[in-house]
């Protein structure tokens, strides 16, 4: 397999892993974000928490694997994005640290203050990651100030505040509304009683917000300057981001869509799925199934617009990281592809088995019956 084909495959796999995270961890992040809204009493909150209790930990591994795979397959991207977005990453980490502990510790004491504190921690821990990841994604379109010296050491001067530009904030809200919708669809499907009622009530509002924000972001993007490769790059060349020229300006970020109009089906399908998730909300299983496609399609929409860019640089556009110059060596990409082909089906198989074992709704009665062992 040629180096450029491998790079494109790994670009797709990057999408698969991030999409896996957005879909799988998305609904438990969304559930946590909605925790204090859907659960007014302790037992209601426990219904919501235990709806994701057995599976959230496995779901979060999509993010961990995503980070590991970026490290292995796109080391330059891993280095530049994680260090460039330093404090933003710290915020995400704080949320990811609080979640496992919150789920596990919350119901271990019978003290309402203890439980209330953890409920808010879980709620914030569910809001921060989608918001920050959305903001980070938005910054990919505006470009981030970083450059490389001759030793390929990255120099960046990115403050947390500079990440909070209007377009990025909009992307943060797109991401948040998408994940909260996904969480609402999950609770609607997996719980019964007042928790389900509230989730079903809120779903049209969050999905409606997603639809509106997604359209605004799309229109905004069509008017934004994009980054484009101007010098001929060899897709098979060794990964060195200093061997190309990039301009900022026309033709903008929709160039790929203009070249291949069929790609417009991706954002249209994302919108259609969000509408369907609302329409089908009384058939909660179908509604949830439809809502799983929304994060995947949203991510695909953004990824296609960016291609071949992974992380554009606003201060030294030529240093932008692209699919053609930020990957690992050919051998590493091959080995890791082999590992994915070997392990991903196994992972999906036992994950499916776990969901099958844990099928069926979570109810108030179950929580009360197992109050010492449930989360």
């Amino acid at each position: 397999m040629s180096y450029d084909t491998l790079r494109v495959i790994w670009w797709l796999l990057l999408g698969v892993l991030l999409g896996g995270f957005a879909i799988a961890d998305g609904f438990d992040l969304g559930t946590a974000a909605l925790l204090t809204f859907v659960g007014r009493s302790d037992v209601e909150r426990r219904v919501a928490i235990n709806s994701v209790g057995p599976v959230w930990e496995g779901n979060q591994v999509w993010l961990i694997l995503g980070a590991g795979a970026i490290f292995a397959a796109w080391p330059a991207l891993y280095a530049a994005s994680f260090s460039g977005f330093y404090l933003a990453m710290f915020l995400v980490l704080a949320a990811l640290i609080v979640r496992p502990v919150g789920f596990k510790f919350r119901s271990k004491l019978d003290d309402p203050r203890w439980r209330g504190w953890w409920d808010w921690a879980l709620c914030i821990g569910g809001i921060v990651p989608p918001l920050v990841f959305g903001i980070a994604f938005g910054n990919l379109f505006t470009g981030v100030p970083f450059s490389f010296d001759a030793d390929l050491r990255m120099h960046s001067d990115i403050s947390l505040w500079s990440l909070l530009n209007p377009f990025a904030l909009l992307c943060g809200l797109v991401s948040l509304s998408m994940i909260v919708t996904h969480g609402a669809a999950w609770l609607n499907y997996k719980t019964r009683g007042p928790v389900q009622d509230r989730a079903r009530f809120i779903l049209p509002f969050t999905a409606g917000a997603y639809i509106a924000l997604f359209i605004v972001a799309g229109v905004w993007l069509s008017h934004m300057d994009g980054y484009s490769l101007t010098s001929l790059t060899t897709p098979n060349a060794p990964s060195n981001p200093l061997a190309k020229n990039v301009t900022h300006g026309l033709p903008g970020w929709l160039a790929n869509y203009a070249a291949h109009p069929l790609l417009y089906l991706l954002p249209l399908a994302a919108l259609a799925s969000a509408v369907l998730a609302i329409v089908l909300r009384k058939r909660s299983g179908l509604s949830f199934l439809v809502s799983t496609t929304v994060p995947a399609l949203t991510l695909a929409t953004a990824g296609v617009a960016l291609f071949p860019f992974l992380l554009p640089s606003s201060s030294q556009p030529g240093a932008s990281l692209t699919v053609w110059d930020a990957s690992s060596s050919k051998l590493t990409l091959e080995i890791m592809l082999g590992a994915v082909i070997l392990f991903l089906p196994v992972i999906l198989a036992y994950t499916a088995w776990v969901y099958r074992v844990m099928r069926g709704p979570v109810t108030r009665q179950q929580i009360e019956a197992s109050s010492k062992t449930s989360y």
Partner: protein
Amino acid sequence: MDIVELSRLQFAVTALYHFIFIPLTLGLSILLGIMETVYVMTGKTIWRDMVKFWGVLFGINFAMGVATGVTMEFQFGTNWAYYSHYVGDVFGAPLALEGMMAFFLEATFVGMFFFAWDRLSKVQHLIATWALAMGTNFSALWILIANGWMQFPVGAHFNADTMRMEVSDFMAVIFNPVAQAKFVHTVSAGYVTGSVFVLAISAWFLLKGRHIEFAKRSMTVAASFGFASALSVVVLGDESGYTAGQNQKMKIAAIEAMWNTEPSPAAFTVFGLPDLASHTTKFEVQVPWMLGLVATRSIDTPVPGISELVGQAHDNIKDGMIAYGALLAVRKTPQDPAPRTLLDAHVANLGYALLLKQQRPDVQNATEAQIQVAAASTIPNVPVLFWSFRLMVACGFWFIALFGVAFWLSAKRKLDSHVWFLRCAIFSLPLPWLAGELGWIVAEYGRQPWAVEGILPTALGVSTTAAGNVLLSLIGFAVFYTALLAADFYLLVKYIRLGPDDILTRPVGAAKEDAA
């Protein structure tokens, strides 16, 4: 403090915190598997209760391990960006494989372990428990393959076009002898930790006269598993020492405070006060021959001392400067084969030239004085290594004694008849953590000034983010982790005091009947 010191301190703090929870996860997961296997084979419900009780404590600890583990994976990118770029092609792969082979397995089946008692058959649940245990242990395997490569970077080469290390032989990376020795040493240490944990808490129950049958059975499992693990940890520690003796001579010399090469076979210094300034060790008490035998497994191979190794580093730096000069020429004229040939001839010592980067960016022009400073910087902190190592080893031998006695008492069925032994077991509770943390200090602090031995100096590996950001995150982690550790400790103590009866009063079949 500058960015390098802050980043190192943050890594040390977060890694040492992480390793409070990991060894217990490693050890308890296997002990849970053993106990549940006995339950499935004998059908005696006390064994299921044991799995559930120790499982509650396992769960509290596991959550902390997960929470502090995410930081470790992100931190290479956030704080060690140049490291990530420079070695990511090699180092990233084991981390990604850890995600695929280990994290998914443990994280998926930990949910089954806690939530699916009533939804699975006995055997199915047993499989879930073992899958969880395997997951945690695979995780240790892959992260130690990654760490082993930092100690002994095999199977990789430098690529001048991409300015980084790239994989040339992935099998060599996986079957790195240092990684293999470290893996068995580390998981054995985890098994000892889990066993001491079960032994000490059971001893406390026996002293209080509570849950006698429960505690004696738990102790029996811990005694036999712990005894085997304690032997393994010392034997494989010896293997670690031997492989380090082959590859990290400076680390061995520093652990021994061996300032000069001695006639072989070298003596082992049991006690002494190493002095960094004068390069001497005062009040030495030595065992003749022992170091030579452990480090070289021969009586005539010399173990080089620190001064000799600094001399070698000096030569390596000068050789590396030629490589760096050639690298600059390659950049200027990429098509010209001559500088590439020159680079290839000296590339093995390129990393040594990078030691000069702290003093000047144009390392090919370094002065003799600067070379000497760089060569001297290859000496790690001798007194810290010397004492960390000795304390760790002392703990290791103590565990063999403790578990040896426990094993003998359990065979005689007299586990509860000696108060002194029960007290010993309780007082031993903190020791495996002490030994584990000291072990990592020896391994990682002893690797300094290198991030990757002979390849990339630690100081060069950092990100270029503002030092204030790192200070902020360091304070954040320290405060956050300490608060969580306090909560973790509080819950553990509370649930241990409650004991198995209180935790398990609720019939566990209740949930299923309601669902049906």
